């Protein structure tokens, strides 16, 4: 059984630099994935992941373990993504919508062209709907739905109370459902109510 994140952080703080390599290998894909969902660009996602680990490494001595390492890392990455989104809005050169449309490989290859097309349409509709959300709702939904963080981890990553996370999530889900229903997405239609 490998060492936990916290043990690796302690080892790194004690001078074992190679321990940080293990942390990078463990979290790089997930951090990059989150950044991609926030930004819609693989290139930028790679940059953000790299920058996030660099920042984390430099600030590791100041990490007191009050939050989980992963939450701290997500916090750094989320802030970097926010910065980029703000700069993007300021420059107004690239829109998320434009980036969303450039992703032919966004859906896993599955047998059946028709099924694949439906999946692709649904995926694009979901992406559009998520990127149209307010930033605070989008962050919570991405971290919860795709990064599978717990409510507590999200609260630590975003530095907000757990109840705020749940409120943002609930509202975000409601917004998403409305947007997808408006686009005529299949499963967003209400199902027959059944007893739990």
């Amino acid at each position, binding site marked *: 059984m490998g060492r936990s994140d916290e043990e690796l952080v302690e080892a790194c703080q004690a001078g074992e630099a190679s321990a940080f390599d293990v942390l990078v290998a463990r979290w790089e894909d997930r951090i990059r994935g989150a950044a991609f969902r926030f930004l819609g660009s693989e290139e930028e996602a790679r940059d953000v992941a790299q920058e996030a680990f660099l920042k984390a490494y430099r600030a590791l001595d100041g990490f007191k373990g009050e939050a989980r390492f992963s939450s701290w890392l997500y916090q750094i990455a989320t802030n970097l993504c926010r910065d980029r989104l703000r700069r993007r809005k300021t420059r107004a050169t690239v829109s998320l919508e434009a980036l969303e449309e450039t992703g032919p490989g966004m859906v896993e290859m599955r047998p059946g062209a028709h099924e694949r097309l439906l999946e692709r349409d649904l995926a694009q509709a979901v992406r559009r709907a*998520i990127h149209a959300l307010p930033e605070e709702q989008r962050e919570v939904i991405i971290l919860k739905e795709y990064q599978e963080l717990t409510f507590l981890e999200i609260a630590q990553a975003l530095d907000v109370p757990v109840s705020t996370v749940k409120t943002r999530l609930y509202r975000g889900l409601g917004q998403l459902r409305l947007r997808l229903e408006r686009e005529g997405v299949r499963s967003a239609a209400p*199902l027959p109510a059944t007893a739990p």
Partner: protein
Amino acid sequence: MDCERVGDEGLRDGMMDVLYGEADAAVRACVEEHLAGCPACREEMARLRALRRDLAAWRLPVARPSFTPRGVVLPRWLAAAALLLLGFGATLGVTGYVSLRHALVAQEARASALERQHREAVQALAAARENRPVALDTAALLASLDARIDERLRANESRQGERLEQRLVDWEERAEAQRRVDMARVAASLSYLDGRHGQQLARTNELMGYVLEASQKR
């Protein structure tokens, strides 16, 4: 029909916990009890679950190498092309290696022969040096040679000087003799003219005076 607990944040948080599998037993029991008696909330939970299924459709681009550094699956045609290219490259590499090897062997042989020739030449020079007679005192030899050269130069200069002086004496003697002959001829000519014209005599005498004067100056 709306839920009578609309706006109940506790219930809403509990529903979120249940929806994402984070509810403890107490919260789960509380939410399920409410859902059992509230069609609106049952419908809401069903919609949220359906929505979560839709959200799962947005996947990361698994086909892109940047997100799949390990275990990338190549198309067959690409793999075949890569193998062909690899084979071609390997053939080129082997051929190149063999050619290079041959060239290196030939170059090495040439270098060895050249080295052998140089070594033999050096040995011959060393042997010649060993067989050479005892070295002379070059400084003394040079001094003696210089002295002989100086002596010869001095003798030569002396000889040349004597010859030059002798030539000058001879030339002066010849010049004096010639002057006397000329004077004699002039005197003979004057004596011939002496008997012919009295007026010409004074003229001739004057002329002779100039001639004598000029010849003495020379």
